[in-house]
């Protein structure tokens, strides 16, 4: 059984301009101990998906449907108290900006101890020693001394370590990481990714890693979900996705990435801008920017279907198999940039 099974998730926000369908029929699964990468550009709905699963959307403006089964129990249908008991305990979350995600007026020790006390009935000293242990585990030097420091006394990388410590302190089965390294320098990013990898092995947690960086996904993900315009457009194992990306948006993403291991004169560029979720395009959401667009693409939304014959590899595209294979070949031969 999957640890997390998200089925046909919809999240809609009421705004002054109208209804924004921020998540529109998203489904995926996360296996225990594995890492799922969710990639997409800003506004593709990847963060909202996770906040919805965690029940952290603003209740006044968001409405949700679908299911998010965590160990078989639907998180979306669960009473608030039960969900809260899971949050920070069996499912925890870390966020993009380590500079603002810690409360500036409490010591990090206090914030860690709070996380322990919310889910464990233990003494103060025990909670503190747990906090100290986890700080050491995430590689905070001089943890004994630094536990009583305030967040502003830490660098960005160190704060993200503290955030990870706080997320892991109750040994969660699932860790949702929302762009945990985006705000960090490349060397620090490498440290943090390495740390997450190490800790995953040690604690056996599954990870959902949200990112816009395909490189990061390639580094740590077992499975990948590509999101575009509030929908999943491609789902595959990491190997499959990078070896045989099977729809034009993914091609575009890969091609527009300047790469240290490829030389191209011009980058492939996806023309235009991401779709408005207030008023999404008809048919395939990507069709206005797609160089392969056909008339069917404007009228009919392609289903998320097996792309290359593999059961684990699904994508949303009307293109026929042959065309896709030709394009994948081009990609492999390094002429990928010419798809535009």
């Amino acid at each position, binding site marked *: 059984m999957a640890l997390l099974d998200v089925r046909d998730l919809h999240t809609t926000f009421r705004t002054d301009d109208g209804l924004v369908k921020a998540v529109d029929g998203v489904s995926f699964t996360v296996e225990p101990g594995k890492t799922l990468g969710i990639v997409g550009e800003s506004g593709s709905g990847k963060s909202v998906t996770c906040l919805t699963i965690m029940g952290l959307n603003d209740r006044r403006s968001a409405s949700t449907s679908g299911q998010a089964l965590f160990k078989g129990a639907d998180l979306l249908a669960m009473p608030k108290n039960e969900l809260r008991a899971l949050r920070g305990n069996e499912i925890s*979350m870390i966020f993009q900006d380590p500079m603002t995600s810690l409360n500036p007026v409490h010591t990090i020790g206090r914030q860690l101890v709070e996380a322990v006390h919310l889910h464990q009935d233990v003494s103060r000293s025990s909670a503190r020693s747990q906090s100290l242990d986890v700080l050491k585990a995430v590689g905070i030097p001089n943890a004994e001394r630094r536990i009583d420091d305030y967040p*502003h006394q830490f660098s960005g990388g160190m704060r993200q370590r503290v955030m990870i410590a706080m997320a892991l302190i109750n040994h969660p089965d699932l860790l949702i990481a929302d762009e945990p390294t985006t705000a960090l320098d490349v060397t620090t990013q490498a440290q943090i990714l390495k740390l997450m990898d190490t800790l995953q092995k040690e604690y056996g947690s599954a990870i959902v890693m949200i990112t816009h960086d395909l490189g990061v996904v390639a580094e740590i993900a077992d499975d990948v979900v590509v999101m575009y315009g509030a929908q999943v457009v491609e789902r595959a194992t990491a190997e499959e996705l990078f070896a045989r990306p099977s729809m034009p948006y993914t091609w575009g993403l890969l091609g527009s990435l300047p790469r240290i291991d490829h030389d191209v004169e011009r980058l492939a560029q996806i023309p235009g801008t991401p779709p408005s979720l207030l008023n999404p395009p008809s048919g395939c959401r990507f069709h206005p920017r797609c160089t392969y667009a056909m008339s069917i693409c404007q009228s009919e939304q392609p289903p998320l279907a097996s792309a290359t014959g593999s059961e684990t590899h699904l994508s949303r595209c009307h293109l026929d198999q042959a065309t896709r294979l030709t394009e994948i070949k081009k990609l492999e031969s390094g002429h990928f940039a010419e798809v535009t």
Partner: protein
Amino acid sequence: MTRYVIRRILWALVLFVVVTFVSYVIFFLIPADPVKLFAGRQATPEDMARAAAFYGLDQPFYVQYWKFLSRLVTHGVIGEKALGFSFVNRQWIASGVQSRAPVTASLVLGGAVMWMILAVPIGIVSALRPRSLIDRGATVFVLIGISAHPVFLALIFLYIFGYKLHMFPIGSYADFFNPPPGQAGGPLQWAWHMFLPWCTFAILFAALYVRMIRASVIETMNEDYVRTARAKGAPEWVVMRSHILRNALLPIVTMLGMDIALGLGGAVFTESVYSLPGLGQWAVQSLETFDLPVTMGVVVFATTAVLVVNVIVDVLYAVIDPRIKLA
């Protein structure tokens, strides 16, 4: 910290000299001669010259200003003679400040407590339920509070609660300690007499604070660390108490310090209407009668109060907000 406090005090001294000097200059520019107060209104030039010489009012203003400053130093700011004496009734200013400052302090501090008692819950509730009935009601309250002049409010309060309903006394003061013979006094009487003034004084600030607290709480609710706290599984009341309120009220503390100091200015109206024998009422009278030493005395006292409150607030702020370092 010490260095910071010293720097603040030095700056305050500079400001103090500027403020008092400007007051002196203005006073000497106004062609109202205090000597007449001493000599009498039918005084001949000889009578006037005698009085002027006796009180040193025949000297140029910078000499008088210098004397004012040196008196402060030689007698110590709180010494009986430090602030000189009133032109009108010749009483030592320092003893006037001593008897009047507690009245103003009870008004301002009591008012501050009152406005926080009003503003904190209303502000929080309207932040939690934006556009709800309570929020809209609060907005109306804010509009009234901001647009109503304290004098107008006081007149209405006194007419309704004092004159018509006999619930509160019509404008008088009762001392907390040692009331004058035959007058009401003691904590209960004091609070009873001060209740309407507190309300009047507090309403403007309460209105402002409802807005500020609402904005601050809404802003804080959207902070990442609040989301972090929820993600940790903290119940709403823990999130509110430990992560939203403390952070949201931090800037309010600074404002509070400043407004309490500024409140000395606002006390002017309230004290006059409610016949409270405080500094504000005194300052108004001194200005009407061109009683420079009293004006100066109140300015000196108020400046000192503003300084002290500001330093206290800054230090307090540094204590409660670990990010602030006073260098």
